[in-house]
């Protein structure tokens, strides 16, 4: 049963929802095969967060080798969501969640202005988000990053949704650190670094494609993702080839009409 905050996602019957949830986890498990692409996994995962939870946007931040937070995935590539994630390198629910390795629930952002005097006004000015949840990517009592959920109405997530959100965050942890490495008890910094660098490659490729096709970087990402999925290519690998000019961009997107004089 769902609580009744009146978010459209909740109109679905509980059967339908159960089915969606199990399909999500099957898809994620399918993604976690040998040699999977971490960026692709995280991208699907934030998509499921928005689909399954009463959240308007979702994003994942990871701590780098200096334990500074950096954004690695966002359900909406619009700059504002990514920026909200990145802003939290200095303050915000994600940073608190990351440092304490416990969930941070902000049912009503406007009541939290004293706690985060920079973050809260930034959210209010740029977006219509009213609530924020930050769930830790947990490993052995520590956090390697956080899953951020932004809601359009001031409300705390019901307990069941919170548990589902945490389960998705746990899948993210496994995906980033690779299950085998976790079992071996290996050091994690290198996997984190690899995931973070893959994100930089994606941004470079988005730029190249956006320029080539004359569209926004969000749209460019959409096309990149579509192409990778329909051709069964790894998203990071395709992005690397695009950024290194080893790939004919016209395959993915017809070139924009020249505007240069």
């Amino acid at each position, binding site marked *: 049963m769902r609580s009744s905050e009146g978010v459209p996602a909740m109109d679905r019957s509980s059967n339908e929802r159960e089915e969606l949830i199990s399909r999500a986890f099957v898809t994620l498990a399918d993604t976690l095969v040998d040699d999977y692409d971490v960026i692709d996994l995280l991208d699907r995962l934030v998509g499921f967060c928005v689909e399954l939870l009463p959240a308007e946007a979702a994003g994942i931040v990871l701590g*780098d*080798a*200096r*334990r*500074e937070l*950096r*954004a690695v995935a966002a359900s909406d590539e619009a*700059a504002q969501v*990514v920026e909200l994630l*990145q802003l939290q*390198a*200095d303050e915000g629910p994600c940073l608190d969640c990351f440092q304490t390795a416990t969930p941070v629930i902000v049912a009503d952002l406007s009541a939290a202005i004293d706690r985060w005097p920079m973050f809260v006004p930034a959210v209010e000015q740029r977006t219509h988000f009213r609530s924020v949840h930050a769930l830790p990517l947990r490993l052995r009592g520590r956090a390697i990053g956080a899953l951020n959920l932004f809601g359009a109405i001031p409300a705390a997530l019901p307990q069941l949704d919170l548990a589902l959100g945490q389960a998705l965050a746990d899948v993210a942890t496994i995906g980033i650190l690779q299950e085998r490495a976790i079992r071996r008890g290996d*050091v994690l*910094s*290198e996997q984190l*670094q*690899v995931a973070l*660098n893959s994100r*930089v*490659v994606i*941004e*470079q*490729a*988005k*730029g*190249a*494609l*956006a*320029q*080539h096709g004359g569209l926004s*970087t969000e749209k460019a990402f959409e096309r990149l993702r579509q192409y990778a999925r329909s051709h069964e290519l790894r998203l990071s690998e395709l*992005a*690397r080839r695009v*950024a*290194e*000019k080893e790939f004919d*961009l016209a395959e993915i997107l017809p070139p924009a009409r020249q505007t*240069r004089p």
Partner: protein
Amino acid sequence: MADLGVVTKALLAIARDTIDDRALAMRICRACVDGLDVDGAAISLLTAGAARQTLAATDAVAELLEDLQFTFNEGACMEAARTGNPVLVGDLRHSGEVERWPMFAAAVLERSAVRAVFALPLQWGAVNLGVLDLYRLQPGALDDGQLRDAIAAADAAALMMLGLRTDPDRGGVDWLDDAVAHRAEIHQAAGMVSVQLDVTTAEALARMRAHAFVHDRLLVDVARDVVARRLMFTEDWEQ
């Protein structure tokens, strides 16, 4: 900045303007030897290409390791450059990793007393700038704190090599403002400019830096203008 390791701190204290690339590479290597449990370090550039060169090596053994990789065209450092991932081998005698570069591993054990090698790519997205190679005579992995420091140092070194400090002297030796260095707009803009000029992403970044410097602007602001299509680079933009 939270949790800075000793090597990362040492790197951030280096004043860029006073030294050239070789001197900078040597300072980075020395900082690693001083701050980490390793015996020597080297930095090689363009490790996967034909024009590769060793920029700095703290001693003859470190130099030998670089030479062996270039000779056999295989090794931990070449793998790190090719994959963009760190290659960490705590014990050359007992590791499955060496199967990927058997000639290099055999030659190292035969010609030196080196037992552990750690190769950290100097990576900026798809761009590999080179590799920071560390070695130790005693076998054993780097502990978690040291590995984090080494990775953060390689990250810092990569940005230093790229010369990301474009803020034209607004006081202080502020190499790496993390919040700025990792902004998505900078990476996106570099991708856009690389298509505008038909150059590599690294060169596109260099052109953006030059523009920022000449116009006394911050790199991140130039990047925002590129992404918003308020600024377009053309072959003759400098005139």
